[in-house]
């Protein structure tokens, strides 16, 4: 198949949905700036266009290439993580970025993608009966916890949790036995609360306590959550209109163009607007399910669902957070929040989904291209 043919073959419905979502982001960045294309909307748009190119590039590269080098990419992303540990730039008090001059690369985001690729390869390369063996569960956990541990050290609790949840989801999809799943859940329920209090850094603990009772410190730690809830609630059914959100435009809502962008949608476009965005995302997730159903190989199925889950977890944690359902962890809303890394990561993810779709008829990606 030629590259042109591959591009013609991508799932255009999914692509249009993604494009729509990024357009919502563009409009919201325009609104948050008080009705101005600068400083955010233009950059957001340009980044998206560049990310589309990246997506296509990823989509047309042969699936067997990705399969073959999956562990190498994973290892490379781990190396980058270790690199930021020593040379990373300080941003918002945490070392997370590598400055590539064009944009700041956040290796923790790369890790998420390549972890899914690596685990998908791992689970499709071992015997189906060994998936739930002690050895492979142990291996899976090690593979998860290395990047999660490094990211946690940065410190970036939100991404660390996302990595773990993403990895576990792939294991679940791959057929981890219910015995493991149930005992794992009960273990977490028992151990996590006590471990968290030991492991969490003071500012992370603060976030959890303010999450549980934001009104306990309305001008301090609970401020973000309270102001965000006020903004969402005051949006009502139809919203206050673009550029009209009072909480947003008067500055009561902090970080409104990044982590709290969904709040802006809710305030300015109301329940109808924010619900539409959620439904669009749900439709994207549905499309992803359908794609995973129709690709032939188990590897492709795992990669498609894995990428979908990563995307879903972003949305769930971000939207849950701004509505006061989850504690404040720095997780952006993909394609809508301002920020280069999350845009790249998301679009790379969709690139892989499209890749799996385009190469859906390849039943065994482990066979080298030359022999095909």
């Amino acid at each position, binding site marked *: 198949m030629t590259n042109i043919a591959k591009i013609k073959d991508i799932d255009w419905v999914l692509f249009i949905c993604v494009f729509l979502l990024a357009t919502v982001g563009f409009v919201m960045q325009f609104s948050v700036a008080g009705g101005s294309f600068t400083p955010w909307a233009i950059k957001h748009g340009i980044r998206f266009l560049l990310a589309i190119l990246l997506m296509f590039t990823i989509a047309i590269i042969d699936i067997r290439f990705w399969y073959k080098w999956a562990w190498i990419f994973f290892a490379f992303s781990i190396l980058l993580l270790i690199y930021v540990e020593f040379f990373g730039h300080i941003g918002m008090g945490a070392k997370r970025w590598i400055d590539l001059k064009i944009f700041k690369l956040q290796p923790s985001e790369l890790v998420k993608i390549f972890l899914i690729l690596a685990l998908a390869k791992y689970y499709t390369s071992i015997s189906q009966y060994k998936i739930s063996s002690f050895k492979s569960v142990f291996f899976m956990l090690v593979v998860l916890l290395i990047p999660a541990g490094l990211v946690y050290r940065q410190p970036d609790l939100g991404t660390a949790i996302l990595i773990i949840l993403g990895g576990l989801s792939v294991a679940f999809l791959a057929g981890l036995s219910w015995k493991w799943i149930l005992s794992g859940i009960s273990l977490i329920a028992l151990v996590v609360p006590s471990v968290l209090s030991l492991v969490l850094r003071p500012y992370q603990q603060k976030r959890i306590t303010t999450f549980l009772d934001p009104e306990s410190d309305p001008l301090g730690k609970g401020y973000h959550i309270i102001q965000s809830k*006020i903004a969402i*609630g005051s949006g009502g*059914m139809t919203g206050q209109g673009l550029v009209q959100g009072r909480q947003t435009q*008067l500055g009561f809502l902090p970080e409104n163009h990044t982590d709290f962008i969904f709040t802006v949608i809710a305030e300015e476009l109301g329940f109808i607007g924010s619900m539409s965005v959620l439904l669009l995302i749900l439709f994207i997730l549905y499309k992803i*399910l359908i794609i995973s159903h129709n690709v032939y190989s*188990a590897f492709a199925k795992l990669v498609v669902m894995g990428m979908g889950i990563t995307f879903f977890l972003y949305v769930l944690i971000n939207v849950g957070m701004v509505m006061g359902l989850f504690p404040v962890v720095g997780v952006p809303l993909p394609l809508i929040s301002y920020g280069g890394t999350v845009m790249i990561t998301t679009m790379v993810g969709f690139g892989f989904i499209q890749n799996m779709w385009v190469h859906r008829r390849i039943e065994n990606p482990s066979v080298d291209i030359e022999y095909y």
Partner: protein
Amino acid sequence: MQKIRSYIPMLHRRSFMMFTLQGISFFGLGARLYYLQHLQEKKYKTLSNKNRLKVDIIPPKRGLISDSNGRIIADTKRIFRVEILKETMPKFEKSFNFLKRIVKISPEQSEKILIKAKRSRPYTSILIKENISWREMAKLQVNKNDLFGVNVNLGETRKYLYNNLFSHVVGYVGKISKQDVKDQDDPLQFVPGFEIGKSGLEKSYENYLRGSAGAKQVEVNVSGQIINEIGDIQPTRGQDLEISVDLDLQKFIAKKLSSHRSASMVVMNVQNGDVKAMYSQPSFDANIFVGGISYKNWDKIRTNKYSKLVNKSLAGQYAPGSTFKVIVALTALKHNVVDDEKLFCGGYTEISGRKYHCWKKTGHGKIKLIKSIRESCDVWYYHMSLKVGIDNIAKMSKKFGLGIKYDFEMSPQASGLIPTKKWKQENRNESWYKGDTVISSIGQGFVLTTPLQLAVMTARIATGKEVTPRITKHSSNGELIQNNFPDLGVDKKHLDIIREGMYGVVNHYRGTARNYKTSGWDMAGKTGTSQVRTISLSERESEEGVIKNHNLEWKYRDHALFVAYAPVKNPKYAVSCVVEHGGSGSGVAAPLVRDVLNKLYKLENSV
């Protein structure tokens, strides 16, 4: 890849389970959205408005106070006050130190501000300094960008144009205090440094002068800067108050009394009760109270030997001395006991084996009513008072406004004291003796009156009507004060007799105030000299006789009193004057009253 056939269906199953989980999650998010945006919409809309809408109180302009000719006495002056909003200052301590370099603040003041900043509710303005100079104002404007959270507001403050001339009458304003706030529900109480009346008319006419607050609703951003003005209600200016006091007369009196340590004078229009002048010596500068008096000044004023703060015209209580005789004479006339055909004053009289002296050692000889007023013979009154009794005298006193408080818009008023038998029994637990009646008859003993009461008494004698004082045309709730005074119900013939006696005091060649005839109107009056010490028998019988006033320590000297009305026909004004420890009424008080009436005549006839 060696997978058995069932692997792919398992993958599909798990994928579908995963998608179901995602769907459930989204349902949860949607439900939460619905809850926040629809069910709780009202609550959060209110909270959002609370965030962004602030109400600024606009204080009204306080009503001005002017004299009877519309000349302003109490004015308002524009000032700049510096306030800070701590929460909007990036670094409070640093900004405050910078501010201190621009605006002069004393170390104590600065400490007070810091304490206030710590304790006050969040997002309330804290007053830094009032009445800053133009220089400071200019500096603040130049450094505006480095002084985030510092606001300069235009305010108003009271300015008394005649520093101490009206301090007792008009009073003064001061900053609202916690005690004041207790009985207020006016939003103005939250305006930092808001001034309210603390004494005099400023206090009793507070509601009249204050006006009502305006409000400006503004939209602010997170740092408290005003983004939009949403609406405003203009404040209602306080009503202006015109008082009946005449500036020129008041000035004249203040100057006249300034040579005395402690004195007071009241001039009243007998027809309508208007107080034309009311002055208490010594006075104080009301301006020092505005914007807060310093401890040093307060201590100085409070401990003043001559009671600077007290409005003696209202609150000073003095034995009326011989001015009280007119009341006794009227009582005697009313009860028809005047049998003075054979009455003789030999300088003293003996009652129940005790000698009661007349002020004139040599005696007045044959004495009749008119002469007894004119020459102020004590013996006549010793005699007559015993015939009518103290309770009848007290009744007559009350009729003429002694021993009672008036429905007058000024406070504090002292009621004075007119003793009765019952009063003595109740308060002193002693029965009333004849001697008590005797000394009461010459306005000594228990009898106490205020200068205002003496003026009212004189006005009632002059008109035969129940004259009551007023200092403005409207009461504090805006109603017109009644001045159609009812008749006193005293026989006109009796009043004429008293008036003839009082005319003689000034105009008869033997009257006690014969030396002080007026040049414009003629006046009728009555002198009074009230003792503040007991003259012992040995002193009276010593070679030098009773010690002369100027040889006594100030506080043992007699009070000098004089009451008068003028002109004699169709009286217009009544005057009372008390000079504390001034000496004799005829020598000290009478000339003051004469000068004042002459001045008043000139003022009224020069236009």
